[in-house]
């Protein structure tokens, strides 16, 4: 047992190394980690790769909107207040104003239309006679959380597997939405998240010599939404839907009254002659009419007789299949309360890396790392000329990287280029410290007693501790600031220093002692 007690640091290092190897290669660990979204796991190891090394699209942007806090709108109902504020803001639609009550008579007011400044919102509230505490850029936490949920749904519905949406806050208090989708085309993701996705169906019918338009179905009115259908055989692509039972009679009645479900149905020619058409149903996405259609005689008859409400199935027709798909996604996921501020004049950033490029980077950066290790090893061998000193040095420094890799695999941290840079930095600082230990221990003649060794080792450790502390201080801003790509770099450099000081460097001391002191 004496050997174990003497060299417990080496044994501890071996145990930790085995644990890391287990985390890296054991298939049992992968089960939990592989589900981690936004990353792709691949190959023989449990390592997960971030977008840079696996390909994919990343979008980071704040939400468009301004907020007024503690608005006193009195005993007005919230929809009423929303209409009031929208009316005072010119061309802002009611859908872009959200009032969230915080008490009986007051709440926060958000405007999520593009181009409204806090000052304009302030003036609108003044004009409406509402008192408020302050107006600011940005939206509320509820809106952000809702947006994140809906965006995640949309990405899932669109079949982009492994996509993630999350909220990030910078230490300076700014909020961003981060969307990461592996393997997908950038444009497709941008299209998906850029669409607010409010879908409604309006009835457009003749009345009193003109035409009237009323909303007859909204997202909440559907009980279920089917998958988009290709159509064919004279049928346009469409989304089959079931209208909710309690809404169906109302809808049926509206259809009859507007003349859509008249004798022999209705034939819609909204696109060619909107001023002389039969009554139409308009499918409207984000305020744009996507398609217009009439009603078949059969359906019209069953609506008139009232039978339809017993089995309230309906189809929303579109011009092409991709529109159908969009409508289905938007109906299922819902409309975004606020939009991501991307685009040339926005405040966001987006990046796309082709999967082939990601894979290439993975191989290339691995090669770069290995070559850097060889360079270090070369200098160390040249300097010491003693395999006994140099070889353990390289092995110890590499074991730090193995431990960090195991850690990354264990917690499912996705590897990116910046993390690889961190590994290289860790090898650099690690070897530096081992050089300090080796030089200190071997200074002034042979180390022939354990006591001499211990005192020299302790001296060396003061410098190592001091150097480690400065590295941690220097890297800590990057680890907490959300500078995107560099966070992984800082986290793994700091982790490497900690692992080194607590584990590997003391173990190297023991190895050296075993090799240099021969008085056992």
């Amino acid at each position, binding site marked *: 047992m004496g050997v174990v007690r003497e060299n417990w640091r080496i044994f501890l290092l071996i145990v930790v190394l085995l644990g890391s190897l287990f985390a890296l290669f054991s298939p049992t660990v992968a089960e939990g980690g592989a589900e981690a979204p936004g990353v792709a796991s691949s190959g023989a190891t449990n390592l997960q790769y971030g977008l840079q090394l696996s390909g994919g699209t990343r979008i*980071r*942007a704040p939400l468009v909107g301004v907020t007024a806090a503690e608005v006193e709108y009195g005993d007005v109902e919230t929809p009423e207040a929303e209409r009031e504020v929208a009316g005072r803001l010119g061309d802002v639609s009611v859908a872009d104003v959200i009032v969230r009550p915080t008490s009986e008579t007051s709440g926060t007011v958000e405007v999520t239309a593009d181009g409204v400044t806090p000052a304009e919102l302030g003036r609108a509230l003044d004009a409406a006679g509402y008192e408020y505490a302050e107006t600011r850029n940005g939206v509320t936490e509820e809106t952000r959380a809702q947006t994140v949920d809906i965006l995640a749904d949309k990405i899932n519905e669109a079949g982009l597997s492994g996509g993630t949406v999350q909220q990030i806050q910078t230490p*300076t208090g700014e909020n961003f939405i981060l969307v990461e989708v592996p393997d997908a085309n*950038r444009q497709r993701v941008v299209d998906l998240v850029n669409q607010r996705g409010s879908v409604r169906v309006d009835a457009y019918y003749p009345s009193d010599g003109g035409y009237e338009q009323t909303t007859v179905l909204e997202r909440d009115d559907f009980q279920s939404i089917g998958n988009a259908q290709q159509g064919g055989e004279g049928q346009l692509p469409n989304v089959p839907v079931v209208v909710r039972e309690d809404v169906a009679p109302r809808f049926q009645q509206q259809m009859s009254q507007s003349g859509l479900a008249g004798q022999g149905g209705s034939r819609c020619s909204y696109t060619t002659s909107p001023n002389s058409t039969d009554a139409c149903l308009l499918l409207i996405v984000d305020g744009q009419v996507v398609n217009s259609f009439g009603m078949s005689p059969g359906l019209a008859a069953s609506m008139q007789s009232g039978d339809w409400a017993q089995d309230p199935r309906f189809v929303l027709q579109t011009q092409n299949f991709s529109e159908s798909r969009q409508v289905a996604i938007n109906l299922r996921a819902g409309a975004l309360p606020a939009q991501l501020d*991307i*685009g*040339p*004049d926005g*405040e*966001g*950033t987006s*990046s*796309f*890396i*082709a999967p082939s*490029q990601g894979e290439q*980077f993975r191989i*290339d*950066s691995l*090669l*770069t790392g290995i*070559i*850097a290790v*060889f*360079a*270090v090893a070369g*200098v160390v*061998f*040249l*300097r010491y*000329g003693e*395999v006994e000193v140099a070889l353990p040095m390289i092995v110890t420094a590499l074991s730090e990287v193995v431990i960090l890799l195991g850690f990354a695999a264990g917690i499912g941290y996705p590897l990116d*280029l*910046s993390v690889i*840079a961190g590994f290289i930095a860790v090898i650099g*600082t690690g*070897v*530096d410290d081992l*050089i*300090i230990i080796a*030089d*200190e221990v071997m*200074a002034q003649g042979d180390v022939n007693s354990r006591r001499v060794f211990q005192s020299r080792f302790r001296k060396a450790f*003061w*410098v190592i501790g*001091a*150097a480690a502390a*400065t*590295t941690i*201080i*220097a*890297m*800590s*801003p*990057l680890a907490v*600031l*959300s*500078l*995107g790509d560099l966070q992984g770099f800082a986290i793994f*450099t700091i982790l490497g220093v900690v692992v080194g000081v607590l584990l590997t460097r003391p173990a190297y001391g023991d190895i050296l002692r075993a090799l240099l002191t021969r008085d056992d």
Partner: protein
Amino acid sequence: MVAFEVPEIDYTRYTNRQLAAVPLAVLAVALLIIAGWYAATGVPVNPGLEFTGGAEIRVAVDAPDGQARERIQQAFDPAPETIRGVPSDNTYILTFQTEEVGVSALEEQARAAGFEVQSSYTVSPSFGSRTQLLALGGVAFAFLGMSALVFLMFRTFVPSVAVVISAFSDIVIPVALMNVLDIELTLGTVAALLMIIGYSVDSDILLNNHILRRSGEFYESTHRAMRTGVTMTLTSLAAMTVMTIVATLFGIQLLAAIGTVLVFGLSADLMNTYMLNLSLLRWYKYEGVAN
């Protein structure tokens, strides 16, 4: 196996003034360059895409180099600001500092010209300027934190100041070199500047520790510290030089940027530690402490 030895320098031949003059002169030149740059362009160092906003796309072009560049020039409107070839494969990294055309349009143009889009990256100007502020704040915080830590560790003025000045010079010289060699400030170079703070202080602390906290004659302590310190810096320098070369060949810009700036910083550190820091320590040891 041939072991190299760090040569022993006979410091007694030089006065403190002589020793300090070289690194201080270099620091002064570096500061002048940065000041001149600031006067001429309004920024101390040219910020890259991540800080100014703009778009970058990497395209694969199936043509020999000269022809490929020509085709790239013709394919895009507006024309790319910079075109950089990646030696290891037939790809080109193009940057656009324009706000009128979105990156989607640029991707379209690339595909229309028959190029394969390998990656694309876009940052809006306001996001970029925010990032820049954060990055500079990070560097400042790191430097101040390091300084405070050094003062806490040594608890004496001159040796601590020596470390802090060396570290300052280690950062300033690479920044000046970035201006001279037309390297832009990116997230990678910011990371490298932070790493310089971490790396370069190691050899300074080592030197101070050997001279101040150990028994032994000044020059002997110095030589022992140098043997260790120079080896440390040389290994790091070797690793970073190789990393820079390999990453440049592969077109991995982040790693290449970190490597380049660290090579500058580590070289500057060799000079600053063993000339500037050493001269200050010698002055402190022989004249600063009343004995």
